[in-house]
């Protein structure tokens, strides 16, 4: 056991993991976090707490992670490279660990130009790959990036994201391999809609033996509407939404589009359960937290195992 988090135990025990996501509020109201947490509690093994998602200022991810712990959830503390240098990152890791955080997710972060402070200095002192390695060095060697010893090293279960679709596609598996060699323990993928391409990615990763070295959680976001699908297809960088998905949503009865979206997501989850090398699903029901209990139920992942 590297960190002993619930997520790590679930994965170690060979259960099919199910993780969720919670975006901190654009203000200081802790109740907003608690309300969202209620929908996730008992339905997921761990919940990602986003870090200034889409480069918009929100309550800090470590603070929201602590509120999540108090609310009975296990957080997966997200950290982006955009807003902090290596000193701030390491001190936040120490602080988060001291307060009970046991998982973290290392990300580059959306460029500041997208958010509500486009004039900001983007820090990017280190990149997401180097952040993985830093967290691992802190944990396994008990050393800061600068080389000094850490009195009580933070033992975190280290995650990262992976985009299985973006071109150059051939490079995708190599990038995954790089994250593994940097020291990542688990991966959550970008939202998957193009199943064919995803199967190919998984096949290549299996052929290279990568999925024996890392837990891969497949990213799922149910479509709420045709508009959302079209937006994701054309406006969200790195997203691959095949036309069939849009057609299927368009073909749904009036008032049943969101239901069809959930149905598609559940079909995907069924396939992931059988797919070799897939250790679980990461459900990103963004601003749709209240639907998580229903989605989890319909996806057949309840009750969550106790480990």
């Amino acid at each position, binding site marked *: 056991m590297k960190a002993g988090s619930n997520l790590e135990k679930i994965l170690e025990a060979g259960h099919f993991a199910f993780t969720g996501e919670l975006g901190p509020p654009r203000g200081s109201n802790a109740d907003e976090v608690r309300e969202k947490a209620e929908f996730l509690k008992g339905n997921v093994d761990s919940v990602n707490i986003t870090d200034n998602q889409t480069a918009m200022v929100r309550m800090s991810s470590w603070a929201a992670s602590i509120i999540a712990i108090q609310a009975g959830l296990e957080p997966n503390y997200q950290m982006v*490279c*955009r807003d902090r240098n*290596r000193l701030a990152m390491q001190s936040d890791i120490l602080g988060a660990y001291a307060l009970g955080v046991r998982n973290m997710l290392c990300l*580059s*972060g*959306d*460029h500041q*130009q*997208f958010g509500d402070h486009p004039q900001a200095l*983007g820090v*990017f*002192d*280190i*990149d*997401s*790959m*180097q952040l993985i*390695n*830093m967290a691992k060095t802190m944990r396994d060697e008990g050393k800061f*990036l600068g080389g000094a010893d850490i009195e009580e090293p933070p033992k975190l279960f280290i995650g990262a*994201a*992976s*985009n299985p679709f*973006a*071109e*150059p596609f051939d*490079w995708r598996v*190599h*990038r995954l*391999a*790089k994250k593994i*060699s*940097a020291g990542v323990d688990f991966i959550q993928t*970008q939202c998957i809609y193009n199943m064919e391409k995803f199967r190919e990615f998984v096949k290549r990763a299996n052929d290279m033996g990568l999925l024996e070295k890392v837990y891969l959680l497949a990213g799922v976001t149910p479509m709420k509407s045709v508009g959302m699908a079209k937006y994701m297809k054309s406006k969200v*960088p*790195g997203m691959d939404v095949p036309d069939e998905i849009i057609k299927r949503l368009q073909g749904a009865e009036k008032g049943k589009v969101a239901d069809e979206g959930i149905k598609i997501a559940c079909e995907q989850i069924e396939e992931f359960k059988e797919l070799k090398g897939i250790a679980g699903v990461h459900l990103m029901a963004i601003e749709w937290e209240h639907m998580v209990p229903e989605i989890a139920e319909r996806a057949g992942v309840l009750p969550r195992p106790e480990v």
Partner: protein
Amino acid sequence: MIVAKRKPIDEIKDLLKDYKKVLNVGCGTCVAVCLTGGEKEVDVLCAELDMARKMDDNPVDIEGTTIERQCDREYLEALDSKVEGYEAILSMACGAGIQFLAERYPEIPVLPAVDTTFIGVNQGVGWYEERCRSCSSCVLGMTGGVCPVTMCAKGLYNGPCGGTNDGSCEIKKEQPCAWYMIYERLEKQGRLDCIINFKPAQNWENQVPRTLIQPGYEKPE
């Protein structure tokens, strides 16, 4: 070369508003090549300021001169005999030249007429693009001659990020993704092994003012 762009006339006017006798100094090197601060641009700016100040009923006695390089002592000498009697010096050189002038004539206010923008290339007449951030530790050897520090919007050493979009950077469609270019070029050259391994965190060397003394030379006392 160093690329700069001229400041808007109103900003320059504001910097100069309290001075009636001004020397405008151009530079014959980088800023001349990028059509910002050479002899021609000095003349144009002097004429503009002369006219504008007349219209404001606050005439200025402005004279222009251009030296070969404002970042070189040897050429600054030529100015020593000229600056006498001026209330302010306006410099059309890059930030290095402006500071070197200010250092040489500490009694006289030295004011910038340009914004130094980047180290870049000349893509065509009047069209320049950034290429280098002078980080002090060049990785172009492993990245197929594409600088990830300058050309990647996040300065990633282990790219591309998840936002890479069919060859474009996530910041906008017209901006090529540096890591896509790096991949393409290395692939064609059969050198993908250059980027297959994890690149550890950078030791930033550009966080303090840097000094370089070539081997065999010394800093004079």
